[in-house]
């Protein structure tokens, strides 16, 4: 009896297999095969196994896919699922958007890249496509992977190594020391002054120079002042000093000059001499905040620049916001600033006696509810305060 049942299952299994195989053979009756026959073909397709990714009859996902996004890819690329969750993760990888870079079927580029490597990278990193007078050789040759890892890395900016170590891999220390008049004795923090892609200045020095540096070194280094403290910067940047005298100042330092956590003292690509894009700078400490924001179903639009809402040097308001939880929102949401659920100093939250503000109900960084509400707006959000309803 048992043997009969087992045999029946085997026969059924073989029948299913033959059905699937037959179904895959018929795919190309409608789908032009030539579209899937570029130089490099994805293995399941090469083996005629369309069913590895698609369901021929019905599926929950667009393209009759068996799974959504990276989940489908990770079904075969199992090691990648683990590896791609470690360290600094490339944004499309984090979002599970493998197809942002790869073609699922076939490609004339290696690793099934949609275009050649550099062209694929520049599709998102548009600013890098700007023409500069001088270009770094690997960048000019489109060799992005000479310095970066495409999926994840242990280093910021997805660098294959610590940035200084990476530079010294090609550039001889002795030659560099000569170019820097012997200081520092061991070249370090190269990216603080040099743009590794390109610049309009010789030696790829970043385009915008700090005014004292443009004049020479003496303004900061020549008078015996301690450069490893914020004092040296505050001598000129008095307006920032006020910000550091706030309850939530953003001074962060481990023995050095806290300003240099975010700014380059010599040269930068932006007027504010930030060491990198604002999001990259903020993310280097607030990684989890970003991760949660990106995972939220409803995020505040135009939230790519933190400094729109946060005073990045310091503020006397909660969460270093530019004003209290009302005024900062009303700067853009002007009509809600005039007419809305009662807010302001005279309206107190019964739960804690604090002023009701926009952020009493909304969490602009992102939530699972429409309009970044903290709870479902139909009931759960209102009842904690309006208990009699």
């Amino acid at each position: 009896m048992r043997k009969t049942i087992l045999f029946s299952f085997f026969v059924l299994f073989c029948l299913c297999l033959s059905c699937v195989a037959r179904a895959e053979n018929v795919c190309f009756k409608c789908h032009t095969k030539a579209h899937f026959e570029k130089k490099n073909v994805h293995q399941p397709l090469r083996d005629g196994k369309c069913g590895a990714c698609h369901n021929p009859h019905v599926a929950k996902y667009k393209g009759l896919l068996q799974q959504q996004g990276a989940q489908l890819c990770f079904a075969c690329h199992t090691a990648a699922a683990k590896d791609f969750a470690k360290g600094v993760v490339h944004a499309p990888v984090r979002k599970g958007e493998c197809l942002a870079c790869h073609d699922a079927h076939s490609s004339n580029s290696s690793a099934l890249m949609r275009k050649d490597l550099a062209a694929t990278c520049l599709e998102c990193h548009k600013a890098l496509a700007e023409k500069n007078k001088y270009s770094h050789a690997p960048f000019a040759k489109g060799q992005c992977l000479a310095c970066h890892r495409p999926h994840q890395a242990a280093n910021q900016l997805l660098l294959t190594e610590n940035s200084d170590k990476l530079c010294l891999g090609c550039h001889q220390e002795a030659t560099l020391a000569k170019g820097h008049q012997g200081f520092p004795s061991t070249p370090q923090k190269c990216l603080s002054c040099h743009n590794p892609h390109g610049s309009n200045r010789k030696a790829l020095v970043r385009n915008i120079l700090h005014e004292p540096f443009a004049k020479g070194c003496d303004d900061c280094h020549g008078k015996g002042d301690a450069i490893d403290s914020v004092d040296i910067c505050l001598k000129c940047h008095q307006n920032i000093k006020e910000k550091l005298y706030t309850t939530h100042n953003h001074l962060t330092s481990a023995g050095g000059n806290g300003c240099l956590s975010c700014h380059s003292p010599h040269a930068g690509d932006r007027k504010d001499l930030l060491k990198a894009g604002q999001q990259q700078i903020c993310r280097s400490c607030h990684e989890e905040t970003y991760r949660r924001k990106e995972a939220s179903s409803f995020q505040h639009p135009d939230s790519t620049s933190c400094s729109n809402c946060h005073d990045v040097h310091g503020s006397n308001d909660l969460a270093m916001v530019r004003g209290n939880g009302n005024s900062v929102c009303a700067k853009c949401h002007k009509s809600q600033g005039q007419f809305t659920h009662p807010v302001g100093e005279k309206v107190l939250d019964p739960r804690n006696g604090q002023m009701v503000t926009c952020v009493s109900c909304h969490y602009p960084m992102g939530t699972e509810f429409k309009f970044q509400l903290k709870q479902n707006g139909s009931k759960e959000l209102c009842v904690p305060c309006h208990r009699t309803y």
Partner: protein
Amino acid sequence: MKKIGIHTRWLVTLLFLVGLAGQAEAKAPWQWQISLVPESRNDAMHMPHGLFIDASKDRYYVVDSGNNRLLSFDRKGQLLHAFTADDQLKSPIGMIRTETDDLWIVERGRNSLTQIDIRNKQTVPHTITDRGRLVFPDRIEYTNGSLYLLDKASGSILVLDLKLSVRQRIAAPTGKDNGGLVDFVLHGNEVWALDQKAKAVYRFKADGTVGGRINLGVEAHFPVSLAIGPRGFLYILDRLDNDIKAYDQEGRFSYSFLGAGQAQGQLYYPEEIRFDPWGNLCVVDEGNGRVEVYSR
């Protein structure tokens, strides 16, 4: 076969019940006791930042930063007094009281360590410098005639005498992940300090050398304050998660409690945790404008 099945089921049920009991013990050992808040809602605290507990006087002192005042409460949570130093305080964020009844207040608004002689009604702000560098005072503790002051500009702890001469400097070892110290507590002869960026707690010996390091692991996301319980458990306040995480004596994560929100027992941008001398865990909840006291 049938007997084994029944036994197995009983065993599973028993294990489940034991597990449940253990979980309840691990998840909810802390009970809310009192909230330190002024009685009148119109007199609510605004962005309280610091807490000092005077065991000799049975008092809690709360630094009500947003209202530029210090509030004292008795052990039952009754407001005793509001002190503004004749409206001279400017964004105070921390305080201690010495045995001679001097108050030392960290005023962020003027970046000073301000000494207040209550008896003679004298207020003297001090700008602190160390080796020619401007110090940005932050957290403060006091013991045996020494002020322990966190310098936010250097991310290190300065030990000063009452004449404000720097006697010792305590800093985490320099390294790639070191972001500077953000909070500390005195524990016996040691200083335990939190490095936010490294997500680690350093145990410094009396001579300032590192005696140990506890890594807070993946559970910690944005640690801002630490406290050490009477049983040697380490408690970490996480401002992003709005909770408190408990680590055992070996530094292993044990459990977390509280969560985000405005209701009692919830946190909204909490700032500091401290144990009082009576074994209660006090949480300075900046966003909710209160200090909540929990006991086991």
